[in-house]
């Protein structure tokens, strides 16, 4: 950790090879991290903050985060969604102490200043004092002392916020490919909240960001995927960077026969074992193809979420930075209003696949938390990103790091590195 303290900006030179190399100091340098928050999370981006089913009725709220800053997502009496900082305008106390709940207004515990769910200051004790003593000055303007309001956008059941007035509208920021995939999951039917899994991963947030853009590792590090025929390197697969690397998506078509086929590629995977079976097939097969397209996929919206679907398990992974060396993974599992009992059961059962104890995800946090001390102790070492060539174009394979190269192409421009 300390080894980065000696560095000054002139030491921060990206390797000459460009996007096929990544210097380890970007994962441990506190100044790089602070700049990322400023440029990305607090800058010209749209940050995911939650789903509308988390604030189901009027007069409800939930806590969320934009970068390291705590925010509150509210639905006011009129049903409108707002996002405000969870920081009292008076002296900066944390305003809301509960994760989620109902409330007509937000009252600060410290001096009881109270705000409506839009974030406007409605009242404060002893505004005019009492017995002619104390109180706020006559010129105190409540309308200038509300909560910090973030620009908010809602798309289907998803809620977004930004500190930027310049960032283009959400639809434009997401772009048609992401919109199509997002709508497929959250805009066609009203959402129903299944619950959360929260995970603390002691690695720089970008190690997770890369990992979820890395089809190359999937079938190798997650033996479960091939062993039980969910995904295999030789299956049909597409890795597509978007907007010069800002976002990306991947997808494949589920192939029930995959498990029993042996190919040139499958032979290369030591960890495949064909003799194993799940006793309860619900977890590893497509029982109900609810989207009628046989697709399984994931997509990333920079800088906050990865949305993934395995069969009927629908989940948003929210990556929340917690200092240069850690991040929280907040998993929100959802379904749809009117899900029948069978589909609901499938969603719950298939949640065993992804999450802090997920059959195809638990290896990620194991590897990344062990990787962080390594990158901290070797800030001048470099990562090699040449799988699938040196380019940043879309590729129809899992055997590529094009999505990561595309990301660092984008990253270097934005961070001016």
């Amino acid at each position, binding site marked *: 950790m300390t080894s980065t303290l000696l560095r000054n900006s002139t030491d921060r030179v990206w390797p000459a090879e460009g996007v096929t190399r990544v210097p380890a100091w970007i994962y441990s340098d506190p100044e790089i991290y602070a700049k990322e928050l400023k440029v990305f999370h607090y800058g010209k981006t749209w940050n995911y903050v939650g789903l509308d089913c988390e604030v189901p009725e009027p007069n409800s709220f939930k806590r969320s985060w934009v970068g390291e800053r705590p925010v509150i997502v509210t639905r006011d009496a009129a049903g409108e969604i707002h996002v405000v900082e969870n920081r009292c305008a008076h002296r900066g106390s944390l305003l809301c102490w509960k994760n989620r709940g109902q409330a007509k207004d937000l009252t600060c515990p410290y001096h009881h200043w109270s705000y409506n769910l839009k974030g406007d200051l409605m009242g404060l004790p002893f505004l005019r004092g009492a017995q002619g003593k104390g109180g706020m000055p006559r010129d105190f303007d409540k309308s200038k002392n509300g909560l910090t309001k973030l620009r908010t956008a809602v798309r289907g059941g998803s809620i977004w916020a930004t500190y930027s007035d310049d960032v283009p509208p959400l639809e434009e920021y997401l772009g048609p490919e992401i919109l199509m995939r997002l709508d497929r999951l959250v805009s066609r039917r009203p959402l129903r909240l299944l*619950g959360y899994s*929260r995970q603390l991963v002691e690695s720089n947030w970008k190690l997770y960001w890369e990992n979820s853009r890395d089809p190359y590792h999937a079938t190798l590090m*997650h033996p479960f995927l091939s062993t039980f025929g969910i995904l295999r390197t030789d299956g049909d697969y597409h890795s597509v960077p978007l907007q010069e690397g800002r976002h990306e998506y991947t997808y494949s078509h589920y192939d029930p026969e995959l498990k029993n086929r042996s190919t040139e590629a499958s032979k290369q995977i030591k960890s495949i074992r064909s003799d194993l079976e799940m006793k309860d097939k619900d977890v590893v097969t497509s029982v109900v193809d609810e989207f009628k397209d046989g697709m399984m996929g994931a997509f990333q919206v920079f800088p906050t979420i990865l949305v993934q679907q395995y069969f009927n398990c629908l989940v948003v992974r929210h990556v929340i930075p917690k200092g240069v060396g850690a991040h929280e993974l907040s998993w929100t599992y959802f379904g749809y209003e009117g899900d029948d009992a069978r589909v609901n059961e499938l969603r719950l059962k298939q*949640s065993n696949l992804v999450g*802090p*104890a997920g059959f195809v995800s*638990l290896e990620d946090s*194991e590897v990344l938390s062990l990787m962080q001390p390594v990158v901290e102790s070797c800030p001048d070492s470099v990562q090699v990103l040449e799988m699938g060539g040196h380019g940043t174009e879309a590729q129809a394979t899992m055997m590529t790091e094009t999505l990561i190269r595309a990301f660092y192409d984008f990253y270097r421009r934005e961070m001016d590195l």
Partner: protein
Amino acid sequence: MPDSAISRSDLREFYEDVAACLDAEALADFPAFFTEDAKYQVISRENYDDGLEHAPIFCLGRAMIEDRITATVEAALYQPRSLRHFISGVRVVEAGADEVRTEANFLIVESLIEQEPQILMVGRYLDRVVREEGALRFRERTCVYDNYRIRTTLVIPV
């Protein structure tokens, strides 16, 4: 009391035996502590109190418990670890005709290479226990963990 009855000290020993099985990573023996139709889940207090059904570990029926063991033993990758369970306050909250509803506190301390030992999980067991073929078994075991987040990974059942 009739020898079918389940005493508090029977339960404590049962709970301790289950914990010992997990601490020893003798995972193959774990499913046998459950009835065939058992429900086993590990769920956050946040979800449980809010009536949200999602649980990071969610097994309906012993078959799913066996599947999780298979996946963990045969198809998962994780760093070497030592887990120790500490169980306190085992007690009967309701004694029914054929089953008892029981509760206890659990603390799981995790030791990893190059790390100081730390609390992995803390919370409550909310169980339904029956006597089957002379042995105690869980018809339901719901592990409600208090900790806001899971640190790194949850691999071994709770």
